[in-house]
């Protein structure tokens, strides 16, 4: 069994040897899933890889890429007396232009933390006098559950449940990165959970249009090493394709049922990504059929535009241009307990992961006490 602990070390050292043999010049491989970012740190993968292989984090954390404008709107809704906001816990600390949901909550706004969007339906049923707005944030992975929640609300004829969608799609973001002359990447570690929904097809443009190696990866330490090995092999052989390392979960055509549910409720729309800007057709909005559940349509609200000035370099971190440690706020003004940028908020944000797992901080073996 792959996961058996005694075998893990053996297989890992074999893969590392092979990676070392195949990679003869420096390469940069980008992961675009926050869960991968965390898994890489938790397993200490960076330290065991040959120095020629650099792993960089892309815009893979849905909380991190959520723009100020969206947060400002969420905060504005939260402050309304007739609104209960339902959200995943990570969102509370995400800074908007001037405030955060956490601050709004401490000041009396009714904000409930849910673990599944479906829990917000219960809140809506129990509070018929209030408008319950679910903050629908996440990639292709979480969007189907939000869609299912809207469908369930429609079936239950709930009149006081709404979503505020900031759902985002991964492939358009990768395309934007690849046309950005500043971004240097030699291969992609593709997000296993996202691909479980989308399948491999939406990522075929990587090898076909950009000659970019790509491997769908799982989340165990050996999955990631195996993925790096497959990427190394493609780079070494000078061929590119979308390979699937995570076959035990990801089917070639993904999950058609989930995608159908998505298509029933949502439609692609332009979306603003923190640090990247507007990417055409990279988001999901509630389509006309279910408009009565779209907070922005059913409960329109005016939000004052404010421009925030900070030295935060989230934007460059999210594009893999700099390491979090290269930002001068990192670990000083910007800490998990009082984040300046969104990348320090979510446990799956690049900065938070770099900080939490001690990059640049851990002194073991440095003789540097």
């Amino acid at each position, binding site marked *: 069994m792959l996961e058996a602990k005694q075998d*893990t070390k053996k297989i890992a050292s074999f893969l590392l040897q092979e990676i070392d043999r195949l990679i003869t010049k420096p390469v940069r491989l980008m992961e675009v899933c926050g869960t991968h970012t965390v898994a890489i740190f938790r397993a200490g*993968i960076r330290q065991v890889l040959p120095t020629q292989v650099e792993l960089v984090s892309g815009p893979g954390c849905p909380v991190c890429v959520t723009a100020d404008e969206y947060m400002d709107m969420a905060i504005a809704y939260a402050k309304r007396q007739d609104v209960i906001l339902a959200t995943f*816990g990570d969102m509370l600390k995400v800074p908007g232009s001037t405030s955060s949901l956490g601050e709004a909550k401490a000041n009396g706004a009714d904000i409930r933390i849910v673990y599944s969007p479906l829990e917000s339906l219960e809140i809506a049923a129990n509070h018929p006098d209030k408008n319950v707005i679910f903050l629908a944030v996440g990639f292709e992975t979480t969007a189907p559950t939000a869609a299912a929640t809207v469908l369930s609300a429609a079936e239950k004829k709930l009149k006081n449940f709404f979503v505020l969608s900031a759902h985002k799609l991964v492939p358009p973001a990768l395309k934007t990165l690849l046309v950005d002359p500043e971004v240097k990447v030699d291969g992609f570690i593709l997000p296993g959970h996202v691909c479980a929904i989308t399948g491999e097809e939406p990522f075929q443009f990587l090898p076909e249009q950009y000659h970019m190696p790509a491997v769908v990866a799982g989340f165990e330490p050996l999955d990631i090493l195996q993925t790096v090995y497959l990427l190394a092999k493609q780079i070494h052989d000078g061929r590119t394709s979308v390979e699937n390392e995570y076959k035990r979960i990801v089917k070639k055509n993904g999950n058609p049922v989930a995608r159908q549910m998505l298509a029933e409720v949502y439609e692609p729309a332009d979306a603003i990504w923190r640090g990247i800007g507007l990417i055409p057709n990279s988001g999901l909005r509630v389509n006309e059929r279910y408009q009565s559940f779209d907070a922005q349509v059913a409960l329109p609200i005016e939000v004052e535009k404010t421009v925030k000035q900070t030295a935060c370099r989230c934007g460059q971190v999210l594009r893999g241009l700099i390491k979090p440690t290269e930002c001068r706020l990192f670990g000083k003004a910007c800490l*998990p307990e009082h984040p300046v940028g969104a990348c320090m908020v*979510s446990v799956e944000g690049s900065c938070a992961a770099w900080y939490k797992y*001690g990059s640049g901080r851990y*002194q*073991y073996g*440095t003789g540097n*006490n």
Partner: protein
Amino acid sequence: MEQGTIKMEHGSGGKLSKALMEEVILPAYGNPVLNEMHDGASVSTAGNKVAFTTDSYVVKPLFFAGGNIGKLAVCGTVNDLAMTGSVPRYLSVGMILEEGFPIADLRRIVETMCQTAKEAGVMIVTGDTKVVNKGAGDGIYINTAGIGDIIEGTNISPKRVQPGQDVILSGYIGDHATAIMAGRHELVLPTSIQSDCAPLNGLVKEMLTAVPQIAVLRDPTRGGVAATLNEIAEQSGTGILLEEDTIPVRPEVDAVCEILGFDPLYLANEGKLLAFVDAKYSGKLLEIMHKHEFGKDARIIGKVTADAVGQVGMRTSIGGIRIVDMPIGGQIPRIC
């Protein structure tokens, strides 16, 4: 404090709890005994060395797989006393009840408390009951305080932690928090996951009788093994290096953590302990622990190092090394 109001994270046993202690509580009534910041205080009364501790219980749900708030309230205080190197003797019980709370539930809770106290060999000798308006509480909150006799010849203090000592963990981690989370979110889990809530004074007494040289005992409750070890690293001025392969986590707990995005090292336990001891005594100590119901899965999970003072690290299963940081607040689930 930087933020003007209390946040949930201030009560989670992590960095913010620590900041609250250091910036608000200790400046007000800090003293040499309290400043030790151990699970319980060691004090002298009429020439006798006594351990003294208190703890409040606000768990939700009140009833969970493997126990209820009453069992927790007795075990928690008994364990804090045991970790001070004492034999727990007497407890007090203060209850804050919310108007409308079913008496049948209260009866279940106090019966469990009585039974657990018997099991632990302690007497509940004083108490207090208050009732608050409906909506002002969560059914029931319980506070327990306790005193115990310090076992002769023991000296439990983080100051005695030295490089080279072994870090011993008494068994599987994360069971309690997983049972609570499952209850809170109505997750249906295999019956194998139950809170590990248990009085550890029996185990501790046998450990200290056999190996009085134990430097530190601590039960990794809020903030889990990670928070407890970080505290000890800081208080002792040493580093701690864990071996990931040796840390016992049930596959079911691992699976729930996977789903909810938790790290078992940060999950609360209510029937586990960590012991620091010179390596030459480890074999003897493990032998004693393995004979006891609550220590049968005990093992060495790491070592104290002179390197990386105040930090906890871990060698991962594939040979990387990373930090195991002090948690900031409660763990939050991931969303993708």
